[in-house]
């Protein structure tokens, strides 16, 4: 497991000949690692009078914090919303396979499902540190069933619910114990949503607005109650209108609590959102952009029929990554911002001293060449192997 900065016995690794993402910039600096954490080389030099035990030449590549995916429904044939007997194996498989995509932490996402599914699946996916076995599980993202009928998207109508009767108790009855839950997506226009949002926020669970027909006012009220995230901006919500921008208007609203940053997920595959719309959002509020995959079980598989929760979907064609901003911005949107959303920015999503040494080695086209978790190499591209 992770050691302390002062773990005198642990080996000191020095990654040289690289550019690291620090303070929003790509700097020509070395990255020092010890005991699974980023090390301050100046302290090592002056206080401990030590040099590195091992130097690794990064060939001029980019070192960025490992990517954090807060919305991923499954992949490689695994569907997180399926109540199988061995949910853990499915999660482990996905956790291992996403390492090659540079993801070092993720939130397995469950789509709208009947209570039986939640009761069976949720307890089987605990929070777990990453390592050679796979990316770390930060907690579950429960997307639905407390969402709008009109904006349910691919979620099954039969299993939508409301919490009008008993607010938070309804939610607890549906999901079961919330120990493993990190994010809940709900529609704030549902009755008594504010009680629910406050109760979830009080428990440290991130509340996200999505699959909703809320107007801007309702959305702002939800933020005042504690909501901090928007699930896949533009998708499954009312379109931006100049007289009522809806949930999208949160990006530039001046009616939010002071100092609060509203984060918004974007699926940057060029299909879910037109790149021009993505750029509008980014320019309006660059600090809040969080890149998500919203990947489905068919990720990594070929064309054909696959399950997504209680439904079946056809897969046809490929997805593509669309760049609409600077490299540094894009990297932060995939690492720092999701970490900030979850309040983890001291240890994740950053290469600052003391943070967990979860990082990726990228070439100039941002292709992942190697992935590290806790300073340990957990994946490497074939060409990079020596």
């Amino acid at each position: 497991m992770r050691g302390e900065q002062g773990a005198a016995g642990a080996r000191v690794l020095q990654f040289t000949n690289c550019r690291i993402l620090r303070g929003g910039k790509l700097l020509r600096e070395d990255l020092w690692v010890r005991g699974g954490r980023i090390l301050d080389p100046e302290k090592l030099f002056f206080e401990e009078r030590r040099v590195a035990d091992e130097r690794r030449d990064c060939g001029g590549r980019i070192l960025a914090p490992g990517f954090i995916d807060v919305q991923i429904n499954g992949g490689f044939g695994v569907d997180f919303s399926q109540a199988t007997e061995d949910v853990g194996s499915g999660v482990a498989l996905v956790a291992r396979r996403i390492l090659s995509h540079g993801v070092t932490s993720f939130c397995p996402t469950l789509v709208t499902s009947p209570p039986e599914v939640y009761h069976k699946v949720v307890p089987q996916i605990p929070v777990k540190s990453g390592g050679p076995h796979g990316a770390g599980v930060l907690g579950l993202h429960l997307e639905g069933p407390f969402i709008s009928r009109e904006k349910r998207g691919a979620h099954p109508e039969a299993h939508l619910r409301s919490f009008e009767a008993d607010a938070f108790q309804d939610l607890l009855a549906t999901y079961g114990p919330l120990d493993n839950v990190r994010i809940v997506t709900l529609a704030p226009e549902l009755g008594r949503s504010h009680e629910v949002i406050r109760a979830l926020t009080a428990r440290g669970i991130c509340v996200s607005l999505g699959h909703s027909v809320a107007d801007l006012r309702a959305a702002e009220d939800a933020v005042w109650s504690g909501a901090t995230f928007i699930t896949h901006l533009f998708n499954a919500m009312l379109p931006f209108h100049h007289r009522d921008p809806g949930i999208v208007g949160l990006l530039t609203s001046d009616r939010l609590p002071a100092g609060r940053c509203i984060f918004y997920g974007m699926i940057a595959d060029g299909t879910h959102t037109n790149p021009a719309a993505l750029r509008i959002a980014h320019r309006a509020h660059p600090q809040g952009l969080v890149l998500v995959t919203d990947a489905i079980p068919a990720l990594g598989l070929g064309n054909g029929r696959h399950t997504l929760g209680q439904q079946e979907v056809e897969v046809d064609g490929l997805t593509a990554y669309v760049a609409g901003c600077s490299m540094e911005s894009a990297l932060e949107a995939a690492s720092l911002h999701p970490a900030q959303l979850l309040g983890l920015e001291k240890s994740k999503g950053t290469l600052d001293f003391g943070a967990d040494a979860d990082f990726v080695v990228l070439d100039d086209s941002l292709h992942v060449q190697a992935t590290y978790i806790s300073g340990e190499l957990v994946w490497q591209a074939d060409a990079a192997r020596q």
Partner: protein
Amino acid sequence: MKLIILEHYSQASEWAAKYIRNRIIQFNPGPEKYFTLGLPTGLPRDHPESYHSFMWNNFFKHIDIHPENTHILDGNAVDLQAECDAFEEKIKAAGGIELFVGGIGPDGHIAFNEPGSSLVSRTRVKTLAMDTILANARFFDGELTKVMILITGAHKAFALYKAIEEGVNHMWTVSAFQQHPRTVFVCDEDATLELKVKTVKYFKGLMLVHNKLVDPLYSIKEKETEKSQSSKKPYSD
């Protein structure tokens, strides 16, 4: 002393870097033979860490020096005299300073050469600590130690004038280096603004000779093959 005049700050820096490189190669250091580089001791301003940070970010992190081989005078020491004595011992143990590199503050005392604001504190007591060491000729054994002073920028012009065109005096302690046979002053055009035209012309006329100090020598890595081929002796001051 030699005065080396380059056009701009960047050329002066490059000349100085090549000079240091040549001195190290010529010295031919080894595991038993350490090349000792002396630098002005930073005097802490608000807190000591700023000096250490400066040394780390601008020097130590770019080279592979072992922390054990770096010695920093603690200008904040309770007993400054004792600190200087201990420092003196360390220098002796290392075989004396081979090359001292420094700049001058606008007040004529040895300091870092920074184009912007200086790291050096203005308090007299702490300034004396550095001068005490410098004024001590013991460290600057004429035959062994070389000194390079970097002076760039118009705001240093007056100090340079006092250092080389006026006599040796205690108010401008760098002037003591006029008499040192192996001292090189490296400056840019702006720093010569207070000098006499004839001084500048004289030294510019000597640049052809002085530039031999920075002629490329053999690479230490390839010295085994090259040394046997070349019978030329490198230019030495």
